[in-house]
Each structure stands twice: as C-alpha cells, then as structure tokens.
C-alpha cells in the first residue's frame, strides 16, 4: 500500500527528472519548509525539498564551518555532487543561519537561472509579522512572475492553495489513524509518505494518499504495529534506518514533530475571503513553529505535549542534529515538561550517519524502562 511512496522517496531525482521531461515545467529546490509552495504551484513550478543522502562526504569542508549542523552540510553536498543538476532554481525562506549557509554556497557555486532568499520573519509573535510576510510574499510573487514570464492570477493562487490544502488535509487524516491502538502504518512507513510529500507533484501524491486513507477508513492495515508507543521530535529528521531500528526492537513511532512530518502539513491556508497572499502569509506565521521562530513566548511546548497525549505516546525520543542551536535551546524545556507529565524521554544527537549499534542499546534500554513487565 505504501510501495509507491517508498519508490518516490528512494528515487526522488529520477522522479523529478521525468516530471520535467513529461511536463516541460520548471523545478525549484527549496531548503526550508517555510517556503510558500502555494505560490510555486500557482506558477506551475514543481517545488522539491533539498535533503541530504546520509552518506559520508568530503566536498563541503571549504564551504561550511565544522560546527554548523550536519544536515546543512549534507544538503549542500548533494548540490556539489551534481545530484540536483536538473533544478532550474533554488530558494530558501529564512529559518536558521546553518541552512542559509548551505543555500548561499549553493547559489555561489552551482549555476542556476533563478535563486531567491525569502526573508521569513523570525519574530513571528510580533503583530507586524503577518503584514511583513505579506509584503515579502508579494515581492516573491513578482520575482517568480518575471522568471516564468507570465502573471500569477488570483485563480492561479486559489489553485495553488487548493493543491496544498488538500494534500495537507489528507496527511492529517492519515496521521489520525496512528491514534489507533494498533496503527495501520508504522513510523517508518509514515515517514516515507511524509518524505515523498515533499518531493512529488502534489497532484500525483494526493490521489494515492486519498486511496490510502480510504483503505484505512475501510479497516485495512498496511502493517501491524503494537510496539511501545513513541513520539519522535526535534531537528530536521529523515533518518529512515533509525526509525526502522527503533521499530525492530519493540517501539512503534505514532507521532512526530519534525519538518519532514507534522510541522510541514499540520495547518492549512484559510482562504475565506480577503487577500490570498495575506492568507498564505498567515498560514506560515501560524503553523507549528520551528524553534528558531518560537519566541518570545515558547508556544511549541503545549502543542508538543498535546500531540504526545492525543496519540497516546508513552515515551518520546528527542533528537537534535549536532550543533542545531535552536533545538538545543528548546530541548531542556521540552524534556522537563514531558517528564512532569509522565512521558519519559530519550535524548539522542544525530549526525549525517547515525551509529545504529550505539543508539540501539540506548533505545532498547529506554523501551525496557517504559515496559510494565514486572520482573522485580
């Protein structure tokens, strides 16, 4: 039931190249999920997220500081190795300096016909955030219009919003089945669906996702998942072998807070009247925040706790990409709050490749801690 999603995720570049050949359209690579894909879909451009490959590499040393996160280096390595050579453009929306460095080096060293830095505000709690982002999105729209040589109309924007909203709503529905006592998909399978969501034309992804959701509504299951219920949260994480390992030793990942995951699709654009660009801006200001933007008030924590409780997580694996400062700052407060609410936590630091053996013992010991089995 999920083999096509897996195929898309594993062969992301082949997919994008064939999409280009088939449609003759432009493909843009983006570095952060604060990029407003609605406007790109309105312009008939395919947005694909730039992600790493989890392979050791030796090409980014001259470009990125050693104490910048492994994810940003892994992303840039993909560009320097030519794996995204089919891209017509690249863009980023401001989140953190590390990923921005990957974008800056990419633009400097890899030729492309279009690049755009979108100054997404970090102080999203300011009353100026929505008007500021609205104005920035208008400028961005103009830049895209110039690039594609045509106007993006209100109807185009409505189309872009509909494409994104429908896909996000279906992901929401898919995730809701993970609240079941035995979720019909494993954490690994859910991650594959979520990853493919960021690589595939939503108009191809949505029908398949709809069919999956319909099958689950009818009681079908893709896999039986009765392990100890876990949440996984933290920095960017698309480490499928890690989730597979966790689920092979008795865990079931039922919910996440990752930008490949709920942070990406949790809320929709509310386009009931008013300026459509402003509605899009509101959606990005109000979405579950990346910790780089979650201040002065720390609003993520009640949201994370609600997710954990709604999905019945007994424990949470809190991961941080090495040197990921925004998450590092948030994690102690998250762990404290979770522990106060009887949700135990395991903290792990991720690199480009994770030491599966060393992590396995920690995960197994964590699951033993969560087990009720009375051997004492």
């Amino acid at each position, binding site marked *: 039931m999920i083999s096509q999603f897996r195929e898309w995720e594993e062969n992301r570049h082949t997919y994008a190249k064939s999409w280009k050949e088939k449609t003759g359209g432009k493909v843009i690579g983006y570095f952060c999920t604060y990029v407003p894909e609605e406007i790109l879909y309105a312009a008939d451009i395919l947005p694909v997220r730039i992600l790493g490959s989890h392979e050791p590499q030796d090409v980014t040393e001259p470009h990125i500081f050693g104490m910048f996160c492994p994810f940003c280096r892994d992303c840039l390595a993909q560009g320097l190795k030519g794996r995204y050579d089919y891209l017509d453009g690249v863009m980023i929306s401001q989140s953190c300096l590390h990923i921005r460095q990957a974008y800056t080096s990419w633009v400097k060293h890899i030729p492309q016909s279009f690049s755009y830095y979108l100054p997404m505000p970090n102080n999203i709690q300011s009353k100026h955030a929505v008007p500021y982002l609205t104005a920035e999105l208008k400028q961005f729209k103009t830049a895209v219009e110039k690039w594609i040589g045509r106007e993006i109309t209100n109807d185009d924007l409505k189309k872009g919003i509909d494409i994104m909203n429908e896909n996000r709503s279906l992901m929401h529905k898919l995730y809701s089945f993970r609240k079941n006592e035995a979720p019909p998909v494993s954490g690994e399978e859910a991650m594959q669906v979520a990853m493919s969501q960021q690589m595939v034309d939503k108009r191809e992804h949505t029908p398949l996702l709809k069919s999956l959701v319909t099958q689950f509504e009818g009681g079908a299951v893709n896999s039986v998942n009765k392990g100890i219920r876990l949440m996984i949260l933290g920095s960017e994480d698309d480490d499928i072998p890690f989730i597979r390992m966790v689920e092979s030793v008795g865990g079931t990942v039922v919910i996440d807070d990752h930008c490949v995951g709920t942070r990406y699709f949790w809320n929709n654009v509310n386009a009931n009247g008013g300026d459509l660009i402003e509605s899009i801006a509101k959606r990005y200001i109000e979405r579950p925040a990346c910790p780089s933007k979650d201040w002065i008030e720390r609003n993520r924590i009640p949201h994370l706790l609600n997710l954990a409780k709604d999905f019945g997580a007994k424990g949470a694996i809190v991961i941080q990409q090495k040197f990921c400062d925004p998450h590092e700052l948030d994690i102690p407060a998250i762990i404290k709050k979770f522990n106060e609410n009887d949700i135990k936590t395991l903290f792990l630091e991720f690199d480009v490749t994770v030491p599966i053996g*060393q992590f396995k013992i*920690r995960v197994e*010991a964590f699951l033993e*801690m969560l087990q009720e089995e009375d051997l*004492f």
Partner: protein
Amino acid sequence: MAQEFWRWKEYNWKNENIDWKGGSIISSGVDVGSVSSQAVILVDGELYAYASMRTGSDSPLSAVNAMNWALDGSGMKLENINYVVGTGYGRVNVPFANKTITEIACHARGANLMYGGSVRTILDMGGQDCKAIRCDEKGKVANFLMNDKCAAGTGRGMEVFADLLSVPIEEIGGLSFDVAEEPEPVSSTCVVFAKTEATGLLREGWPKNKVIAAYCSAMAHRVVTLLDRIGVEKDFAITGGIAKNIGVVNRLQKELGVETLKSKYDSQIAGALGAALFAKALVEKERK
C-alpha cells in the same frame, strides 16, 4: 614475550556451601562486554558460581567459555540451568540465552542486590563505555546516560596507560597516590591524545606515578561531568572493572563529594548478576 601490563586477572568462584541439586530455580546471566565476559549462576537467587574472562574476537565463544568456567567442577551442566539471560554488547551472541536484556537494566538490577535497595545512582565504568544510571528501590531504571563520543574514562583507556607506563593494571590505583602533590589532569577527551600528552610529560621528566595520577584524575573528572548531567542522588555505587581502581574511585568521590557504597560482591559481575536475577524472575513468571 614482553609482559602485558594491561592484562587483568581472569577468575572464577564457587559457593561450596550450596548444594545446587536441592535448588528449585537455577538461573544464569551472561554478560558479554566489549572487554570482559562474565557468567553468573544463581541457585534460588543465591550466588552459586561465577567466572570473569577476557572477551575474545568471537563473542559466542566468549560466552561459552565464561559459562563453562563458571560451571567448572560443580557437576552442573548447561541443561540443568532453567533460564539464561544474555546481556552486554554481545548479548545477541550468547548461543544458549533464552532472552536478552540490556546491560543498563541488568547493572541496575545487579547493583540493587550487591549494594542494597538504597542505591539510587549507579555508575557503570565498563571496558569501552560509561553509564550513569538512576534507579528506584527495586533496581528498576528510571533514567540513564551513556558516554557517546569516545572511550576516555573507560577500562580500555586504563589498559592503554598500563602498557604505556609498564605498570601492572591492578597496581595503578595505589601508585597514583604516591605523588608529592596532585598534578593537573591530562586531556580527557580522547585516549589516544591523552597517551600522546602522557608521553610528552614523561619526556619532560615527570615520574610515572605523577602521570598515572594525572590520568586517574582526568578519568574521574570526565565521569563526573556525565554524572552531573543526570544528577547524583544518594546512595551511590560504582560497578564494572574501574570500581576496583582506587585511584579513580577516590578522586571521583572527592570531586562529587559523595561516598560510594561498598559491597562484598565483585563489582565486575554486576551486569551478569542482574541478568541472572531477571532470569530467575522470568522462571517464576512462567511457573505462575
């Protein structure tokens, strides 16, 4: 052949006062660690026999050897043992294990018997890693942390220093106090760099004992940072091979300001002992 100063003594032990044939539950734990392997046999929860040996390149063989040595001379055979729990890095390589449980859970369980139910914090200083474990009055793990960057502060690091300084490993702890004044610790982030630094100090004319003191101090300091992250609640106990090294333990106590509990049991068998206690509980559960 040159003397191998790192080589610690392998040993086995048997409780001659127990007649295993009269026992109802014979349970065993086998802890195949990265450096040493232990097998423990309990008769109705009482310690009957154990053996501790160096882990070879073949983990299943190390488990078999440790078990055979623990059984040696007892008349007991493997088939007389009701249940075996495998633990340690090689836990999946114990060919005759009925179940595997992590060494983190096993050390907490073992320490609970060895040091009593008042133990709340355990530091397991093993061959290639360190674990700080918090547990409840039953020995159930409440929280834990492991070192994850390097092997400094572990038994393997101490073996490297024993060889470098040509001092038998069992003598290191005592000699580390035979110094005029306590030196600054050596670099504590990497065994290899620490060794490089120690070589430099020897060239500068430092006596061996002073270098040993500097390394013991570095090792103690390193594990204190691990313990600080998890918080030390009394009572506090140390398990694993390094618990036998007073050069590290005394400095650790001083830096923490907390005394460690003493036990009549061998600190190195904590993991296998915990595994054997779990094995007993699993037999009782099956028989219910």
